[in-house]
């Protein structure tokens, strides 16, 4: 169920064993009366790909800008590798940024853009051409070295921005929705390239996006932000299988939120009943649509929650059927393997293990 990938495990292990690159300690940020970040604490492991995921206005970009040094926290501290980070000006931080609209210098060629970071930070003159070339090679842009940014397509500008940010060999690379301006196909391709680049270089990536699919595809861990607070920080598999709040469960993937009442270790929601060790009182459970099975298709386990439901709507999507069910007044969404049209009442079931208790 929580089958995390190897790199995610490493990342989590890194945090536990103290191999922390960046530490966000109780950071808050207000713009006038507007509280954008509310006491965020977060640790990022060296070599990790961490995504800040959230809707617009959730504070994810603000957190990124605090780490880059473009904004100052109202309270709290940032530490990187045992050094206080938030008191340093941006140009002294070993952090580089890939901006949302790339922010390439229009008056400089691709080559000059990439060399910029080396020139201003006083790298040896003899070293610069080699490192620039290396960085351009990394993103396959050598042939455009002499072009101006205005002559390049969005995807090409994206690559140059990446090379420019990586040429200084930062410890931490910040990416502010870098793929949002690209069309869907290019986006998919760039996702793959970003991921393999990160693996090759071993540089820690802090990636900001509002796209949950992108976050799932790329990240070792996802930090979900809501209204300036961290909702949950976990690996994609963990956050999908074990959401801790109803917001997380609904934001990442689709889900059924079941409002139950627990008495004597039995959770009840309308006609549905299952065993739960939670204390007596109200409780909210999340059941993913694919956890609901048709009894005719798959044999139920002995402790399964069985129920009869009317199929209100059926949408065929190739490999699966999306069903809208009505179980004695409780509506449920189910996703079952493609099997032809269904009508009338059928028996369904889900395993109590797939009913995940979540906070409001």
């Amino acid at each position, binding site marked *: 169920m929580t089958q995390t990938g190897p790199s995610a495990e490493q990342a989590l292990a890194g945090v536990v064993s103290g191999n922390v690159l960046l530490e966000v300690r109780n950071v808050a940020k207000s713009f006038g009366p507007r509280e954008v970040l509310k006491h965020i604490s977060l640790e990022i492991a060296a070599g990790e790909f961490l995504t800040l995921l959230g809707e617009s206005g959730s504070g994810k970009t603000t957190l990124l800008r605090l780490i*880059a*040094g*473009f904004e100052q926290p109202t309270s709290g501290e940032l530490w990187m590798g045992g050094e206080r980070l938030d008191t340093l*000006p*941006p*140009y*002294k931080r070993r*952090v*580089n*940024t890939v*901006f949302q*609209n790339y*922010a*390439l*210098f*229009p*008056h400089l060629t691709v080559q000059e853009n990439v060399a*910029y*970071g080396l020139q*201003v*930070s006083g790298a040896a003159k003899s070293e610069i051409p080699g490192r620039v070339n290396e960085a351009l090679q990394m993103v396959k842009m050598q042939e455009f070295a002499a072009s*101006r940014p*205005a002559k390049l397509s969005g995807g090409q500008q994206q690559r140059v921005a990446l090379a*420019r*940010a990586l040429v*200084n060999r930062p410890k931490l690379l910040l990416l502010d929705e870098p793929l949002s301006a690209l069309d869907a196909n290019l986006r998919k391709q760039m996702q793959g390239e970003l991921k393999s680049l990160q693996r090759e270089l071993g540089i820690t990536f802090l990636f900001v996006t509002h796209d949950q699919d992108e976050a799932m595809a790329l990240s070792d861990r996802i930090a979900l932000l809501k209204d300036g607070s961290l909702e949950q920080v976990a690996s994609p598999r963990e956050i999908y299988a074990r959401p801790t709040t109803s917001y997380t469960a609904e934001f990442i993937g689709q889900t059924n939120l079941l409002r139950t009442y627990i008495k004597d270790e039995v959770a009840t929601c309308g006609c549905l009943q299952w065993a739960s060790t939670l204390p007596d009182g109200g409780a909210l459970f999340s059941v993913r649509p694919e956890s609901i099975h048709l009894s005719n298709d798959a044999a139920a386990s002995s402790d399964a929650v069985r129920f009869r439901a009317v199929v209100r709507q059926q949408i065929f999507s190739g490999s699966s059927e999306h069903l809208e069910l009505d179980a004695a007044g409780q509506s449920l969404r189910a996703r079952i393997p493609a099997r032809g049209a269904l009508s009338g009442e059928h028996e369904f079931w889900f395993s109590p293990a797939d009913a995940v208790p979540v906070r409001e």
Partner: protein
Amino acid sequence: MYSRAYKWIVSTPPILWVTIFLLIPYALMLAHSFWLVRDGMIAHEWNLQNYAKLFQNPVYLEVLFRTMRIAAGVTLLSLLLGYPLAYYMSFHAGVRKDLLYQLVIVPLWVSYLVRGYAWKTILGSEGVLNGFLQYIHVTKEPVSFFLYSPFAVVLMLTHIYTPFVFLPLYASLEHIPRNLVEASHDLGAGSRATFFRVILPLSLPGLLAGATFAFLLTLGDFLAPLLVGGPSSIMIANIVQSLFGTAYDWPLGAAISVSILLLTISLLFFTERLEKRWSFR
């Protein structure tokens, strides 16, 4: 699509205006520059002697060079004043931006003459500056060279043309995307390096436009020398004015005007090429 009649109706007045008040006068001026004055009358005989005079009589070239020196001085000084102001307002003024902008614009509403006379009262021997210097015992007697010198002309024209330099500069600084400045800091550049490597190169088109304004407006000025300049700072436009007036030598005046016009056009042509090269959109 607009009808033929509509196009005619809207385009005729401006074409007439430009023809009557611009093209015909220019043509007349050009013609005059090839005529001559005989016995106090303009004789319509085609010749080149007016242009020859420009090079034979050293006075004209001397005055032209003085005019260009004054224009260069005004350009330099108004850039030195205008650039820091525009830079501060664009990048650091914050909420006071709009107020400061109005304060820069307001002097443009005051008549040129009034501003000229203001400098007279400041620089004159009975003026504010001399009074102050004597009051704090820096000088015992009024200093006379403040007024009626090329210095006074440069000072007055700098005061008048600084807003003209400021406006295009400010516009070009406002157009620089702020994330370029952030990107520069992010890549390790401090404020100085960011200014010289990013902000200054990207503001060059505005700088050039402002400098062109100041230089060309000064080149054609004739009031400042009359008000505060005195005989030692006669400029080329004063000569043209007197040739068309009391000296009554329209052909020579026209020849000088045509020469200045050519100078101006070639300068504009040159700066436009440069501006195009420096804008990277």
